[in-house]
């Protein structure tokens, strides 16, 4: 039985010294069989399970997670949420997600602290400006709020930026999506887990999937550390490990997994009240509610499952931060970490059926899938339930790599985000 979270329940429980809070989700032993097994308990997997239950009434579902919920990229990203993507296909998908974000805390009854503090993308040269204009104009026709700020406008919106008008990378302008912002990453995983659990979904942690049983081209179930589990359908949402899973199922994917790192400063009182991203200088910065500056860096270029980033990338990122914010040079790095991001050749995701019937893959979000979490789960659940791509997911099938219909969002992903 789940309690509803509210100010009143908090107050009531305070009187009982918080001894009576129920579990946010149960931790059952897995059953022998499910209608759908979701492999991967990151945000996308949990959201998939939640929407399977909520939107499609499919509740005989298990989420199988090798470690702890949200311990993959969901738990280690810089939490930037925005939808101002270039191509129509991406704009539609990310905007769908953004609309879901806007009601997510209430929907889940879990405060994911979605904070629409605005996202700036800076332009430093004529080429940047041209690309920015292109993006802004197509965003608007796609119904996405997007505006252009000139240098003075940037300074007014985010006073701590140094425009460096005589510097190496002067800020010439920026696009601003006011509805963009950040969310509390862990809360997204936990909120979805709790809400999915409330609808009957089983959440199984510390249980790596080690293989698939496939016969006659159809999925039968998954081998796990806790034994074999039969499943009518299997949805793989394992981000950095997608190739490992695909190799288990006997095919290969057009992705490579690379380390992407991020870092936080020591906490300080509020000093920057929006998200700032720059492709040319390669840095992105926001400040969390606890006060740390949350800073995203770039990827190491080589395949790596080590969940750690290298020093040259940190140096480059912090040099960029020091350029845009010379007042932060005395701030100090508190912790640095890495995730394993699965990157597609066109920097767009894969939401797709596979050569194996009943086996679905959702991956390739690379450096930027946190913002898509609700939308991704939504369209993937629909795709699984109907064994047919949801219209928003249709452009993201594996076939595009054969036919050439790539959705090249390198512009959007020029900075990892």
């Amino acid at each position, binding site marked *: 039985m789940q309690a509803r979270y509210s100010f009143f329940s908090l107050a009531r429980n305070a009187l009982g010294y918080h001894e009576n809070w129920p579990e946010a989700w149960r931790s059952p032993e897995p059953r022998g069989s499910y209608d759908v097994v979701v492999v991967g308990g990151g945000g996308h997997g949990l959201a998939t399970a939640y929407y399977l239950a909520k939107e499609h009434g499919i509740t005989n579902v298990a989420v199988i997670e090798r470690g702890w919920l949200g311990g993959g990229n969901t738990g280690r990203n810089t939490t930037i949420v925005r939808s101002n993507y270039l191509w129509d296909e991406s704009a539609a998908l990310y905007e769908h997600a953004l609309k879901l974000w806007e009601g997510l805390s209430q929907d889940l009854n879990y405060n994911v602290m979605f904070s629409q503090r605005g996202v700036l993308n800076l332009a430093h040269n004529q080429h940047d400006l041209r690309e920015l204009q292109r993006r802004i104009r197509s965003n608007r026709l796609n119904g996405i709020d997007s505006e252009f700020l000139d240098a003075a406008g940037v300074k007014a919106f985010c006073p701590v930026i140094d425009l460096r008008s005589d510097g190496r990378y002067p800020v010439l302008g920026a696009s601003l999506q006011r509805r963009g912002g950040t969310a509390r990453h862990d809360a997204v995983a936990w909120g979805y887990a709790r809400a999915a659990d409330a609808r009957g979904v089983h959440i199984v942690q510390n249980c790596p999937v080690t293989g698939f049983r496939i016969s006659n081209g159809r999925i039968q179930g998954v081998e796990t550390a806790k034994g074999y589990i039969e499943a009518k359908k299997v949805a793989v949402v394992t981000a950095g490990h997608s190739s490992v899973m695909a190799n288990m199922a006997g095919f290969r994917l057009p992705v490579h*997994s690379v380390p992407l790192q991020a870092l936080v400063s020591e906490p300080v009182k509020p000093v920057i009240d929006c998200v700032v991203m720059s492709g040319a200088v390669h840095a992105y910065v926001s400040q969390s509610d606890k006060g740390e500056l949350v800073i995203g860096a770039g990827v190491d270029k080589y395949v790596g499952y080590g969940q750690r980033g290298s020093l040259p990338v940190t140096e480059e990122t912090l040099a960029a931060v020091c350029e845009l914010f010379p007042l932060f040079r005395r701030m100090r790095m508190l912790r640095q970490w890495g995730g394993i991001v699965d990157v597609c050749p066109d920097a767009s995701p894969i939401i797709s059926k596979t050569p194996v019937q009943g086996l679905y893959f959702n991956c390739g979000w690379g450096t930027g899938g946190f913002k898509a979490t609700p939308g991704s789960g939504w369209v993937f659940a629909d795709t699984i339930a109907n064994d047919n791509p949801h219209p928003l997911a249709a452009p993201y099938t594996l076939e595009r790599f*054969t036919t050439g219909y790539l959705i090249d969002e390198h512009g959007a992903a020029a900075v990892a985000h």
Partner: protein
Amino acid sequence: MLLIDCPHCGPRAELEFSYGHEAHIERPKDPDALSDSDWAAYLFLRENPKGVILERWVHSHGCRRWFNVARDTVSYEILAVYPMGAEPPKLEQARYV
């Protein structure tokens, strides 16, 4: 930061090298003979292994020569360096899930 043993210059910092992704992916001799999906496989599909990867590097800020490397993608240990065109060495595979 990795230390990569360039076959020509000796051990140098990773900074001096550029990455060339998976090795031993040969360009088809007759591309027209391939179906679209076979061509796509050549272009895009990769092993991307967790474990030993056979990959190519170039000493781009040094001697500018390409060579192959066998590396564990979890420990990042470099297990072998061998020239372009050579067969990969036989290696113990660490098991990872």
